[in-house]
């Protein structure tokens, strides 16, 4: 059971960037009849999403968020000595996007920079890695950058995934300060369920070829995708969430020594509105403590938790707030965390 506790490390500031291009889901009807689309959209509760153009990447979105944050806080960039970029849609297979971002952001060559490639759990995983580094002496400030362009991952002709995903990027500045108190993390993995959310082709197991980019009808519903598109078994993902996530949330609450009433906000991965309503009911949580952005930004994978904090809590953190975060998905990989926001700066959302 991987449970971690840190002291005196916290988030100094958060910023987010989203593409300008708004997709109205009711009008996303190129490949499906309008009535079917309305049915799906009403059920998943995702009305708008943001899509980048083909040239813009997840690192560009994160870069825009980072520039906004560092300028808003007037941060001396020479003090940033650690940069982790979290994404499963990097710029290149190599080099790591984090290293490119080190240069673009004008950070010193003494910066530790590397990528972390997990999905919906990854913002919390990334935080835990940065908190670990920060507990040692030697690093003044660290940047957690996190971006996804899931619009480029899924087939628009596969109704299982066509209406769910969106693009966004965030930047979090992490610093040491006793005021943050203790923070707690629970990190988990189950590779036996690797096939539930997967891109089969285009890696080094099934390398890119004419075959992997060929469109195929993949089920009795007539859904179409290639082996280089993402695939999701929604039913078993939901079974997994039901089985593991309430348990993990109870575990992190117990480990933090708090009671569930002591949390100001529960920020869950924005998978679809159905899953979050289910979790609230199962854990008997008050809905007004569960901020949501799924209706306007869709599922942005690992970005959805910090994006929801930036979008929904900006005007609600005048006093210190106790947050419980929980992210779950592709891997399967899941993580929960208890952190305190204290005088955390939240920038206005940037559109690029």
């Amino acid at each position, binding site marked *: 059971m991987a449970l971690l506790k840190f002291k005196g490390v916290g988030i100094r500031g958060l910023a987010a960037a989203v593409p300008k291009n708004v997709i109205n889901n009711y009008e996303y009807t190129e490949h499906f009849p309008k009535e079917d689309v309305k049915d799906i959209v009403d059920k998943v509760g995702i009305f708008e999403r943001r899509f980048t153009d083909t040239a813009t990447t997840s690192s560009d979105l994160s870069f825009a968020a980072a520039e906004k944050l560092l300028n808003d806080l007037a941060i001396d960039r020479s003090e940033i000595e650690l940069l982790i970029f979290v994404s499963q849609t990097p710029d290149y297979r190599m080099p790591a996007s984090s290293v490119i971002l080190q240069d673009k952001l004008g950070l010193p060559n003494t910066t530790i920079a590397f990528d972390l490639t997990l999905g919906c759990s990854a913002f919390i995983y990334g935080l835990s890695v940065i908190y670990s580094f920060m507990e040692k002496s030697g690093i003044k400030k660290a940047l957690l950058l996190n971006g996804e362009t899931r619009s480029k991952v899924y087939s628009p002709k596969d109704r299982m995934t066509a209406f769910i995903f969106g693009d966004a990027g965030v930047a979090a500045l992490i610093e040491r300060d006793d005021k943050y108190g203790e923070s707690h993390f629970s990190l988990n993995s189950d590779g036996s369920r690797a096939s539930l959310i997967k891109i089969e082709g285009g890696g080094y197991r099934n390398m890119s070829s004419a075959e992997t980019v060929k469109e195929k009808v993949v089920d009795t519903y007539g859904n179409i995708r290639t082996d280089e598109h993402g695939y999701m078994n*929604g039913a078993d993902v939901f079974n997994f969430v039901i089985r593991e996530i309430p348990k993990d949330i109870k575990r992190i609450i117990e480990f933090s020594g708090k009671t569930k009433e002591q949390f100001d906000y529960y920020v869950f991965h924005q998978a679809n509105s159905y899953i979050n309503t*289910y979790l609230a009911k199962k854990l008997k949580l008050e809905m007004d403590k569960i901020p949501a952005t799924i209706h306007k930004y869709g599922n942005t994978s690992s970005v959805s938790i910090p994006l929801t904090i930036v979008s929904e809590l900006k005007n609600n953190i005048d006093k210190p707030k106790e947050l419980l975060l929980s992210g779950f998905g592709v891997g399967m990989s899941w993580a929960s965390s208890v952190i305190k926001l204290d005088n955390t700066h939240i920038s206005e959302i940037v559109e690029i």
Partner: protein
Amino acid sequence: MKEKFIELLKEVFEMEDQDINLDDTFRDYDTWDSLTHLSLIAMLDDEYDTQIEDEEFQKLNTVNDLFSKVQ
């Protein structure tokens, strides 16, 4: 037990005004789709503490097949 199960299924399938019989093939209902499947998963967990993995679920076709899983 059976009556309660049928009532819960009517909610899941949004078939409150129609009959549901044990030998119906639920996959033929107009409202059956992958999203109804999620509602069914939630109902089975809530009411019967039962989970059916997709591989096993694919073998179930009738209302009675479903009912047998909660008995």
